[in-house]
């Protein structure tokens, strides 16, 4: 049985859904952030699998750029979480309603 690109895409979709469920279900800002990372990773897997299927390198290049943007996002996001924790002593998003969200 040959592993086609569809297998990777299905796995990536399932990982994306799990990450999205974690983003919606959890309260801890750090775990929500890690769920976002999981979703980004699953999309990267889709890019690479599609690039292999289409026979060019653009999928892998897109993956590299997603990684760079994710790294920048992690830096700023964690800085924000640490600063919120210093002000409020909590990492739970339920208690962060200062903007009436």
């Amino acid at each position, binding site marked *: 049985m*040959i*592993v086609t*690109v*569809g297998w*990777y895409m*299905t*796995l990536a*979709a*399932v*990982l*994306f*859904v*799990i*990450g*999205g*469920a*974690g983003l*919606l*279900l*959890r*309260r*801890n800002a*750090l*775990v929500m*952030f*890690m769920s976002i*990372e999981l979703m980004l*990773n*699953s999309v*990267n*897997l889709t890019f*690479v*699998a599609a*690039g*292999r*299927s*289409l*026979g*060019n*390198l653009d*999928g*892998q*290049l897109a993956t*590299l750029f997603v*990684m760079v*943007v994710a*790294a*920048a996002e*992690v*830096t*700023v996001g*964690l*800085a924000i*979480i*640490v600063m919120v*924790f210093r*002000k409020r002593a909590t990492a*739970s998003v339920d208690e962060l*309603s*200062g903007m009436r969200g």
Partner: protein
Amino acid sequence: MNPELVVFVIFAIAALAGAVTLVAARNPVYSAMGLLLTMFSIAVFYVLNDAHFVAAVQIIIYAGAVMTLFLFVIMLIGVDKEESRKEEIPFQRPLVAVLAFGLILLVVLAGNTAWVVFDNGGTPVGTIENISDALFGTWMLPFQATILLLTIAAVGSISLARYEGPRLAREPVEGAAEVAAAPAEGGDE
């Protein structure tokens, strides 16, 4: 039996187990370990898809740098807080289930109807040489844009780390810090 199938099944199970651990674990450190497992598995999938350089970058950047940063922040702030599992928005959990099911259904539907599978003969392998040819040729402008992005992110995180709350006056006068901090502290309690 196809060796790629064996590797795929093993690491697909590992990736799914890591993802479920990420979502379900009560301790954020276990969540981080689950995400680490998933990221290693995805690196293996990159190797299976001929993306060797991307796999190395995945290990170095995600499993190395990003997860270390996450673990550092978890150790700093998040471990000893018990997270409330009570749902505040009543319809959220059913909505999650419906959305998840809908998305999987959509993907399977799209994969069965819209996706065209091409013959992947003659695929360029993602070695460092091929990647750099593309990155510094076709993708030169986006690459330089990421330099700008990383600089902005570094400056932003440093300024966030040094931020000490709103100030009214340039010169900190007596009692100005309390006045400035009051709306931020008591706005939502």
